């Protein structure tokens, strides 16, 4: 396959950035999207150019480090797939592919396609945990959990923190990310004691970071590589309202 790439290049946070066009030839359909970029980068290095910086690590769809907006869609059009697991066979020969970083004020661009997602960590810091020092836990079987609750908690807990939800949201909202953690812990008995204070603190932190509000458009869940359901946001809202009613 031969492809034309239009890639966002930005040398650093203070650079304005621009789209740059590259031609990539003899791409194998079995390559992953990132391997295609690797091939381009190898060429750029040898030509003395700056290779395209992008985040990636596990390359098996679980660490959440990779992510770019491909042809206007976070992680590309293949559903439930991270960028690293997207393969070139889903593209047409001679296609032009537009590649951009996650765009949101709370995710400032570090370089090219690399953005700073530390806002997510600070949302977790605000309350996305159960306070339990090591060694103080009771026997694991002392509190049974309904299988349905455990399963639903797991569904929410599979969030990989990639930020695609923010990238796709027309409001730049981090509601799906925040709600996934709130829901995960809300559904389990272990999460009950801190349930309301957690929801309040996390939502307030999300706002303080400068993310937009949710308008229930569903764009987030449509691009989420783990398919985190939209009703986690309803759970977050319930807990947040209850916390404020107190």
């Amino acid at each position: 396959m031969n492809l034309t790439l239009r890639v966002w290049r930005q040398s650093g946070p203070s650079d304005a950035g621009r789209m740059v066009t590259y031609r990539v030839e003899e791409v194998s359909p079995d390559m992953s999207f990132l391997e295609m970029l690797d091939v381009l980068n190898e060429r750029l290095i040898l030509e003395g150019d700056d290779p395209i910086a992008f985040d990636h690590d596990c390359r098996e769809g679980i660490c959440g480090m990779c992510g770019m907006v491909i042809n206007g869609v976070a992680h590309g059009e293949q559903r439930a797939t991270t960028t690293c697991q997207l393969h070139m066979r889903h593209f047409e020969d001679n296609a032009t592919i537009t590649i951009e970083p996650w765009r949101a004020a709370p995710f400032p661009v570090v370089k090219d396609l690399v953005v700073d997602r530390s806002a997510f960590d600070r949302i977790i810091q605000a309350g996305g945990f159960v306070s339990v020092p090591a060694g103080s836990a009771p026997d694991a079987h002392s509190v049974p959990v309904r299988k349905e609750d455990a399963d639903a908690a797991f569904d929410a807990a599979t969030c990989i923190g990639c930020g695609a939800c923010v990238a796709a949201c027309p409001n730049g909202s981090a509601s799906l990310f925040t709600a996934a953690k709130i829901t995960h812990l809300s559904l389990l008995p272990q999460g009950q004691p801190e349930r309301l204070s957690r929801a309040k603190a996390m939502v307030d932190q999300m706002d303080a970071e400068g993310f937009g509000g949710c308008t229930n458009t569903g764009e987030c869940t449509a691009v989420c590589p783990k398919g985190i359901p939209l009703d986690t946001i309803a759970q977050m809202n319930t807990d947040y309202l209850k916390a404020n009613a107190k």
Partner: protein
Amino acid sequence: MKYTEGPEIRDTKAPEGPIEERWEKRKFSARLVNPANKRKLNVIVVGTGLAGGSAAATLGELGYNVKSFCYQDTPRRAHSIAAQGGINAAKNYRGDGDSIYRLFYDTVKGGDFRARESNVYRLAQVSVNIIDQAVAQGVPFAREYGGLLDTRSFGGAQVSRTFYARGQTGQQLLLGAYQALERQIAAGTVEMFTRHEMLDLIVADGRARGIIVRDMVTGEIERHTADAVVLATGGYGNVFFLSTNAKGCNTTAIWRAHERGAYFANPCYTQIHPTCIPVSGEYQSKLTLMSESLRNDGRVWVPLRKDDKRAPGDIPEDERDYYLERIYPAFGNLVPRDIASRAAKNVCDEGRGVGPGGLGVYLDFRDAINRLGRDAVEKKYGNLFEMYERITGENPYDVPMRIYPAVHYTMGGLWVDYDLQSTIPGLFVIGEANFSDHGANRLGASALMQGLADGYFVLPTTLGDYLADGPFGEVDEAAVAEAELKVRDRIERLLAVNGTRTPDSFHRELGRLMWDYCGMERTEESLRKALERIPELRKEFWENVKVSGTAEELNQVLEKAGRVADFFDLAELMCLDALVRTESCGGHFRAESQDADGEALRDDEAFAHVSAWEHSPDGEPVLHKEPLVYEYVKMTQRSYK
């Protein structure tokens, strides 16, 4: 490569007495640090996987001043996250005869009698607390309808002791540790440094006193000093370039510590996983693991004839070779990882491999679908089939899967004593980065167990004993400056070469070489060839590598080049270790040492020891042997025929 032999290691600091009391004894003898003093003690933890994340969180909770470092953009990305299968614990919730002793026994035996009994027993004891801790944190383990935790039997274990969270156990446990860590960051006890890479260890007055790191965003070289340093930087499987490790996994942190005096133990012990998705082309950047559970219902085969290019569906039954069922009639497709891996390599070496490059074997579900029905197969393996199709574009319901072995885990690592302290006082090493608990072969679902045991329970106790002598005062400025200068100098050297090959191209070549000569099967000849070739390649690297950009910016080429440079040195030591250990054991198979059936043959007489290598500046490593004594488990030769 030459080496010399130094004195044996006699004392590993394990307490004496009955094995079940040793950890209790050590916990009691470990000195405590008074809470007011803890605030004055600084600890550096490098790496935020299960071991590092849980250690930093626990130490912060205890009141120490902790600095935590990771190269990713957030601590939650560490590669522990990719572990699929589960975590072992001797809870015996099933009442199926499991016990701490049985987990201990299985682990020692599974490690092919190359692990320390005292350490392994402690691991089995602590395993029970890990599950409690994780559940209390809200880790959503799989449950049964009664609301209690579900377990399964994993990797051929006869008891059902593996706790799991669908296929994402590592992710869920890591997020538990990550959340505990973030809680401490919010509390101010842990200061987090993301996108920071450790490039050297500061040793002053005989103690590990800090690290030199590079801020990967600005390129700034920073010095961080402390009263103790904990390395939790994972394994070195990426020396093979293609492995199931994350792309960023590297050996730099432990290798620099090794150069500063920490012994490196058993570097040649490498675990190869038999069911990975095969390489599809030259550009391949990483390998993806498929759960081993697939071998429960899939049948492994290759064409009977060499170079048979027919589609699998066109090959009649009598022209297929179900070689695992043929060679190992009792265990069939369920033989252990290393045996399945080697058998696949052998048939491919005979020219009977399938797929691109002939490096693959079929894992066929046709019979399972006929027997159980497509729905039943989908229920069991649906998500794995989907993942396979996502990567290969082939539908495993219609076409047999292709699989091939891949490097998965490294049992070797920095040598540590019972306290998890390396040979440099004040340098502690935990998780996959140390060598301690798995011997020559790790059992399935034991990596998560070891990482969390070290981080949550073992290190916080033993580190306290070391710190009871602290604080250790100002760090000698000369030592810090020397380490910093060395780091700067190395970066400048890398940038100055300005050659014609990329770091990745060297890494690929090194990986290929290691896979061919020091991979699943090693011979004296292959290892000697590798030991000849590695220095040549390293020389070419330092003369011809091309690193674009500058040191004062986010520069992924520079990061890569530094890691590859260290892989060369490590690769050499791995080959040397493999050459010296002329026996076969666990993940180390020397073709010269096999029985009549082609099974690995241990040589307990000569090799019942840990090989701990000391770095020497003149390039001739010194081998220190730590004898392994088995008081509880009788050494036997395994057989799967």
